[in-house]
């Protein structure tokens, strides 16, 4: 007898598409270079109030770089603040729980249904980024769940795999997560000291000329020969505070200037993102 408790799927079966890895030579022909200035982030589309059943929600998409790939599409829903279950011990402030998950079809490599270490890592980073902006002691004994599903990841899995590091894409994903979560929190009406937006800056080496490495914001790994280092920053523009900082890469320890420049660029990127965020929230409050 059919199981009545769950929604039964359709009768037929389909197989997920499997992409064979394109030969190296072919991808050579598609070499693209960065088309926007070094200090401009990609355009993004943000909308709040997309999930009617959630207390707050937002949808963010960052447009693709334009070479046939796909951009980043995130949807975030906020549930709460709501009372914690009886079993949890007393908490004088709100308990944030963040949950980031790639949809199984979000990337070229199919994702599993259980969160992998990268996704859990994103969750913790996001929690740190948001905790700095929420006024947590307004809600003792309560919790809020922030659930982000990455509907579509960056397209450049292949390139980044060729370079051996997936973290660059993960950073872009994190910055998007932070921005969309902040919008959803505002939509849910949870008190924050400020909006928080994410931004990424990277030290890249471009193809061809042996020019000195340069710093760009919102990097797309496939557009550059090599990404030397990158940092993802969550920034409160009004308070001028950084709530989360993630730095990765190889930099000469002596050159402190590069570090600060990278962070400044990251802040700049997050400020740009914040403008979209504020604009979007204004629209809804209207």
């Amino acid at each position, binding site marked *: 007898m059919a199981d009545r408790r769950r929604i039964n799927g359709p009768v037929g079966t389909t197989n997920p598409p499997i992409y064979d890895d394109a030969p190296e030579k*072919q991808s050579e*022909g*598609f070499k693209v270079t960065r088309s926007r*200035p070094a*200090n*401009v*982030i*990609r*355009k*993004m*589309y*943000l*909308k*709040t*109030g*997309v*999930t*009617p059943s*959630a*207390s*707050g*929600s937002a*949808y963010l*998409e*960052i*447009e693709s770089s334009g*070479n*046939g790939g796909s*951009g980043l*599409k995130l949807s975030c829903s*906020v549930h709460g603040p709501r009372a914690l279950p009886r079993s949890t011990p007393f908490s004088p402030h709100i308990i944030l729980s963040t949950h980031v998950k790639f949809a199984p079809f979000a990337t070229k490599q199919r994702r599993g249904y259980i969160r992998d270490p990268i996704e859990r890592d994103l969750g913790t980073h996001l929690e740190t980024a948001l905790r700095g902006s929420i006024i947590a002691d*307004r809600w003792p004994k309560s919790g809020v769940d922030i659930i982000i599903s990455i*509907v579509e990841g960056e397209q450049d899995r292949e390139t980044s795999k060729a370079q051996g590091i997936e973290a660059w894409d993960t950073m872009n994903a994190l910055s998007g997560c932070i921005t969309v979560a902040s919008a959803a929190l*505002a*939509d*849910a*009406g*949870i*008190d*924050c000291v*400020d*909006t928080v937006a994410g931004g990424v800056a990277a030290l890249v080496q471009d193809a061809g000329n042996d020019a000195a490495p340069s710093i760009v914001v919102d990097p797309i790994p496939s557009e550059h020969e090599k990404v030397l280092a990158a940092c993802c920053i969550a920034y409160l*523009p*009004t308070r*001028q505070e950084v709530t989360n900082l993630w730095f990765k890469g190889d930099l000469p320890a002596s050159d402190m200037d590069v570090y600060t420049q990278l962070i*400044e660029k990251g*802040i*700049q990127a997050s*400020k*740009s993102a*914040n*403008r*979209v965020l*504020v*604009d979007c*929230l*204004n*629209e*809804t*409050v209207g």
Partner: protein
Amino acid sequence: MARHQNIRNLDYEAELEEYGAFSDEEEEELSPEDQVRMREGTAQVLEALGVEAHKVPKTQIEESLWHYYWDVDKTITYLISKYIDPPKKPAKTAPPKTAPKQDAAIASASRQSFAHLFRDLPWGNIPPERQAVLIPPPQLPAGLLGGSGAPPKMSKLQQLAAARKKKAEEKSASGEVEQTQVKMTELTVNDNQASKENRPLAGVFGKRVKISETTAQGRIPLTMAEPTRPEIPQAQAPEATPSQHQEEDPIDPEPAVAPPKAQPSAFASTLFGPSSDSPKRRPREVFALPYMAISSYSPDAFGKPSPDDVVLAAQAKVATAGKKSANVHNKKGSSSADGVTNQVSQLKIDDTPLPKSRNLNVLSEFEKQKGKKTASFVVVGHVDAGKSTMMGRLLLDLNVVDQRTVDKLRKEAEKIGKTSFALAWVLDQRHEERSRGVTIDIATNRFETETTSFTILDAPGHRDFIPNMIAGASQADFAILVIDASTGAFESGLKGQTREHSLLIRSMGVSRIIVAVNKLDTVNWSQERFDEITHQVSGFLTATGFQPKNIAFVPVSGLHGDNLVRKSTDPAASWYTGKTLVEELEASEPSARALAKPLRMTISEVMRTPQSSISITGRIDAGSLQMGDALLVQPSGEKAYVKSLQVDDGEPADWAVAGQNVVLHLSNIDPIHVRVGDIVCDPAKPIQCVDTFTLKALAFDILMPMQVDVHRGRLHAAGKIEAIDAILDKVTGKVTKKKPMIVKPGTVSRVRVTLHSKVPLEAGQRVVLRSGGQTVAAGLLE
């Protein structure tokens, strides 16, 4: 040295007298003691302050002493913090005997923090860029939290409140509203500056104000004009904080002033609908094919038919070919069927029976046998008409079951309060049947009279179990229709399964029917009642297609056994002089056996027995078989051999013929290929598996192209009525109307049925079509 001493020495009268002047002249009117204290205190303080004393005016010292009630320590601390520069060491200034170290530490700490706090205060001349702007709190719509994109959701309570509020507002003078607005504008220090760029924060926190109205009452979003303007990169805070990087990095200013907003992608716009604020984009006239940019793409890949198309075309070809051959089959009839069987017989590889076979001529053996004739009958009727009870009584009276068994059953039945069902339990052996008091599946039993050996097929009367009844009826030579004569029951039965069952058994090819008018004891053997029922039922049965000579009526009482085996002893029943039920049964001639036809047998049960891992039971519909024969099981198409067989009541036998109920022990076949409802046939002349067939059907209900279940004995398959070819005349079989849309109940028509899977069916077989738990038609395969 402080206040409490004062209080101890208090002269209440003097104090009270003094009280009157206290408010206006308190400072001049120091009492002589106070004046002395003041002098001493001042001296002490001056001494403590030492070099710094000149920085403090004397009046201040006196005032602070008065304020602190001559507490020299506190006064000094206060004076130092107020008038003397913080870097100057308090340890040096404070008198060591009176000022504890702790105090000094506190003093220094507070001094430092205060200085730090007020360092940047403009004290009145506020530069314009630092002036705060007060903005009236935004008018927010009342509603529930969340999902702000949609219009606000309101709870019922809120709606009620809102309605009341509106009414009240309408009543009250509008002047009040204006007043508050005026107050609001007064609040705004600089209304002009409350322009667009200052709104972000108000907007962002607007919601917060709404939701935490109780906590943040009266709080007005305070916006600093300067730092919230991200559009202006050159922030002009007096002291540059580390984040003022744009200033330090003038080569690379942030270029975009407008926020980098993108249009929603196709995905997003499908999700959220077209955004209202976005400018209407002209629909694209040219649609680029996807992947055109990729060099590996070649547009002529779509010039040829796709692999799918190729497959579909091939399938279509086969289908039309199949249809053609089906048509040929229909036209040529048996000759083509012969051709098919010929072809199949050419295919046969190894049908040689196992060495065990005796290669008997079964038919001549059967002729030689001078045994009893065999017959099987099905007992049908409305639910609770007393079918099982009657058969239980019959078996008891014929000594097939002994009294002891029945007594035991009666005791068990008593336990669950169903004593009246004790006889029915002889046949209803399943747990569920007993607890519910209804027959669910066919029960078979056997008994013998002098001339015949009978097989009882006790069918369920409940309409939910009609498929089981069909399975039973398909094995029967004739039928007993049991009718409940008690008041009301007959009438309801005639509308219910009495009617449906008789229609079904007639269309299954049963022509002889014995009507047992049961429970006549409840109506005191009333002859009128019997006659009334006889009249109605015979009319109905002849209308159904039974010939009057094949219908017999017997008044019985199943519970007491009257007129079953022996004549009724009840004086009230003396009017009946006809045959008993058993006599009627013996008088019935079993239908002619199709002995010479190829073997056909429907499997009604599959089981494990000691003789074989796979044994099947069933009634041989046509043909004959013997031990060692090769058999073909359809639809699986697997071959098996008869290891041994048992006939009728479990006697081992060498052969069996049509009409007998047999148990076959098979070998050389995997159990997964043998299922209930499958057909066992002669490998030389196998039954074909078909998924389309035409049917001459008698409609019980309105027929139209629809989903149906096709039942044939135990076998049932899902399918649908593909088309209705014609309506036929009931008697002559001539076509009266071609391609009708629907078929009315009671008319005969030719319909074409397709099945979802292939099942073994052949011309001349009788099937029943059911839909949604109702029998809609029954008929003969053509």
